[in-house]
């Protein structure tokens, strides 16, 4: 290993897995954000299980992590939590709504400066939230959030 330029890109199948995992994780994070909020508001896991049709085992399995989550899983949780899905896909080149001065690698890398931006390569990435209608806007980056209608 001599530099990051020698790093080998993922294959098409690996990119598929990466894209799937990022979208699924984004959905999981969005749903869990609303679930934490509902818990703070007094909702119990038993109540959530009831809202999901009484399947406590299914609920417990899916609260452990996003490993087996599908779009149906997301939809069930969003409905049971009285939420709404909002889905947005960004291009990696799109500017951030708020530019932050914080960069975790400042001081850790030879070439890093306080104004350096992220490394952008040939493909996409995902973050999360859930609420409302699906809006696809560009080829690469996805945003998901769960909000209360």
């Amino acid at each position, binding site marked *: 290993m001599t530099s990051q330029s020698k790093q080998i890109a993922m294959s098409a199948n690996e990119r598929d897995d990466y*894209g799937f*995992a990022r979208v699924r994780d984004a959905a999981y994070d969005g749903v869990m954000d609303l679930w934490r909020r509902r818990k703070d508001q007094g909702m119990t896991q038993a109540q959530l299980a009831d809202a999901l049709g009484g399947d406590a085992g299914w609920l417990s399995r899916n609260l452990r992590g996003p490993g087996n989550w599908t779009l149906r899983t997301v939809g069930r949780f969003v409905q049971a939590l009285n939420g709404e899905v909002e889905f947005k896909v960004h291009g990696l080149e799109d500017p951030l709504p708020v530019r932050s001065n914080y960069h975790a690698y400042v001081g850790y890398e030879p070439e890093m400066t306080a104004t350096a931006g992220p490394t952008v390569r040939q493909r*996409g*990435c995902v973050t999360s939230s859930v609420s409302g209608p699906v809006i696809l806007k560009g080829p690469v*980056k996805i945003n998901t959030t769960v909000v209360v209608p």
Partner: protein
Amino acid sequence: MSIAPSIKALTEAGKLCKFPLQSRQLPKRRLFLTETALKDLQSPNSATNILGVRGFIESAMTRWVLGQRVFADDKGKPRFLKRLDSPPPEIWEIRVIEPRVQARLFGRFAEPDTLILTRFHSRGVLRDRKKSAAHDSEWQVAMKECEASWNKLFPGEAPFSGPNIHAYVTENCDDFTI
């Protein structure tokens, strides 16, 4: 004293590599890979790549660097990031838990929010921990290997140690026992 200058020097020397984030967002946590970990990630012949989980591994590392949730399950057990039972001390794993094949990314904390990954393992190879002290289990061998990698990179420097998970992961982390 910060370990950042050591990491910077090791990066310059090619002994450590920053995980290349693919996002328009700025990194919120730090992740460095040793030469061995990078090989595990990229070599078509590595144990993890033979099993075809690289995309999921990169997704897990992206979660870490972007500062996304370090989550526990509904019973408070760590699911994404876990400190393994010592000895050796302060060996952590990122858990890549997928339907097909699971992987474990071993490493140590250099500072809060700063992970140094030393090696990737297939969960199938890391079989159940043996209770007997007569032989090391695959887990113990892998943990000792992680410790040895650390000592080679950072001779005389102990890994970061803190009283609870929030000392290691300062933001967006479930409250779980380590």
